[in-house]
């Protein structure tokens, strides 16, 4: 046996590459891997599909993994010619990493006719779909952030522009927090949103076009105690008073308050001139799954993109608002979801979403470059290198 790295997937065996039937010949067992926390929104849809179509999907398993591991896992399975994950739910990062490695089946344009719902995307969701290329299917969408979050009991008037934020952080050292962007949605939204706020030369080019952003983060870093490795930690710190001002998104604002991890009276603030850096979750199929499974997944996705199912994406504000297609009303969401949003949602979101421009996030390569630079210069900069 030669000593070489696991090969990139080459040929796939017979039943994985042929014509994809409309319905699977036999009900399949579907393994779903979630690396984006998306099941929170979509598991109800999938379960409903399975219970209504036992002849298509007889059993479904769910598993979760951190996004960075996704590509390695899939690649290894493909290398071994044993792909048992039929559906991956991922964010932009995992999707892009897979595209670069050639891991995903191109759903478009081949199966566009089976996924009618895709014609119906909200405008920013359609932009997110464009970013995904031919591999991913947008299943949920939210405008994300960057937002600032605080407790009025600890902070009366939050800063409203970048300089004020810097000044506030300087005046209140260790009280401003955001999590390591590579591990945190709000963290990365903040990172990608700053060039718009600061007016950098090219917000899409972290290497050459983000001079103001990097300088700003470096200066801000002087007043930051540490960068937690997950958003949850920043939320916890906000709740217990260690941090007074943290970075957030619409979902991270509402859902933790529903769960009780953050006090109900927490408020959000925005920075003047901010653009929404939108976010979406995608469904992808790894290359190497059988054609039967592909057929089943396509049927499932079509089902998930119907407005009735999309209403479930309101959830408890986890990915607020959540639905990726047009004309999905909160009133068609499950009652529990409606109750949560009524109690913990914010009326001002409608205006904020309508009144601020939306931007798609960085492409994967640029994002990795931005993360890498952030890790070395901002995150790792706080440690002396030996």
């Amino acid at each position: 046996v030669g000593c070489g790295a696991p090969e990139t997937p080459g040929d796939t065996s017979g039943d994985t590459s042929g014509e994809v039937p409309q319905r699977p010949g036999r009900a399949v067992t579907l393994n779903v891997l979630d690396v984006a926390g998306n099941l929170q929104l979509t598991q109800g849809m999938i379960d409903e599909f399975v219970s209504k179509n036992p002849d298509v999907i007889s059993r479904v398993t769910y598993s979760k993994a951190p996004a960075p591991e996704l590509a390695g896992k899939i690649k290894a399975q493909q290398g071994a010619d044993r792909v048992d994950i039929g559906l991956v739910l991922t964010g932009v990062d995992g999707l892009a990493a897979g595209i670069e490695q050639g891991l995903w089946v191109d759903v478009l344009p081949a199966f566009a006719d089976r996924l009618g719902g895709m014609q119906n995307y909200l405008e920013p969701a359609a932009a997110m779909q464009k970013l995904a290329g031919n591999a991913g299917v947008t299943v949920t969408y939210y405008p994300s952030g960057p937002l600032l979050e605080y407790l009025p009991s600890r902070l009366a008037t939050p800063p409203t522009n970048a300089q004020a934020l810097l000044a506030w952080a300087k005046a209140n050292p260790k009280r401003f927090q955001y999590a390591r962007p590579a591990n945190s949605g709000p963290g990365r939204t903040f990172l990608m949103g700053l060039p718009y706020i600061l007016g950098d030369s090219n917000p899409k080019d972290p290497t050459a076009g983000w001079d103001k952003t990097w300088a700003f983060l470096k200066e801000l870093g002087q007043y930051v105690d540490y960068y937690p490795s997950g958003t949850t930690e920043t939320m916890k710190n906000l709740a217990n008073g260690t941090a007074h001002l943290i970075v957030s998104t619409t979902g991270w604002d509402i859902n933790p308050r529903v769960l009780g991890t953050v006090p109900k009276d927490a408020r959000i603030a925005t920075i003047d001139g901010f653009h929404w850096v939108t976010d979406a979750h995608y469904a992808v199929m790894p290359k190497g799954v059988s054609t039967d499974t592909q057929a089943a997944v396509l049927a499932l996705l079509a089902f998930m993109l119907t407005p009735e199912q999309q209403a479930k994406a309101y959830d408890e504000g986890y990915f607020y608002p959540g639905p990726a297609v047009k004309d999905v009303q909160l009133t068609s969401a499950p009652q529990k979801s409606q109750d949560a949003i009524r109690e913990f949602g914010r009326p001002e979101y409608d205006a904020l979403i309508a009144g601020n421009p939306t931007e798609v996030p960085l492409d994967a390569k640029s994002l990795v470059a931005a993360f890498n630079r952030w890790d070395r210069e901002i995150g790792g900069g706080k440690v002396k290198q030996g």
Partner: protein
Amino acid sequence: MSGSRPGRPLTHWQHRLAERGIDRQLWLLVPALVFVVALFLYPFFYGLGLSFQPTRGGPFSDYVRFFSDAYERGTIWITLRIALPAALLNVLAAVPIAYRMRGRFRAKRLVTTVLVVPITLGTVLTAQGLLNFLGPTGWFNRILLATNLVDEPVRLTHNYWGVFFSLVITGFPFAFLLVLSYLSGIDPTLERAAATLGADWRRRFTRITLPLLMPGLATTFCLTFVLAFSVFPSAVLVGNPAGETRVISLAAYQAAYEQYDYPYASAIAMIMGFVELVIIAVVLAARSRFYTGSTGGKG
């Protein structure tokens, strides 16, 4: 019947092999050998081979890459800075406590049993507990604040100290139980003999017990160091994985599963193994300077 008596018949070949200790019983080793070769040695050498086949450059370029990048190279220092003091503290703290408890006393089984608990908790649960307990509003800080020992919560998690405590919580009981067993292996009559020869407890300890315990301490240090050196989940969960606790196993993990660069990951794993073996070799070399024979233990 003198004819039936062959002069000095040749000894059977089985006897000859048996004289050297080789016989059919050795077949019992085969499954374990096959296993260790297939699942340990082969992957290990596979990894070694892989580390010399980088995606770019000559056979050594991944090693060069690691050592020429301060961010990567620094992980060695970061790891040692956590693992060495933690292992040292675990061993040194274990000695006086084990020395106190080496005799038989009523609560001994209870104490040792309670000490085993953190070993079984594992690093992940310990991490979760530490985050809760040592966090800024955890009980530990609340007590410090309530007793006016500090004005502001001490930050003990998501940094060096979080990882350090995690290593102490899982490593100390381990070290303690090992040291205790080494101590029980030293014949208590030796100390009694020293007492009748006029040695007070201090000199009984320094002249008799400690020298005899040193090899055991060295072994204990090696084992706790190995545990500490491979710190991975706690470095992520209670440490600051982007910064001061970006340990070398994390670098290897990221290379493999975030950058999909298996040769580079293997190179880092090999460097990691090498650094660890160097430390162990140094300790074992020092150990060999002590008396390592039987200590008359009854064990």
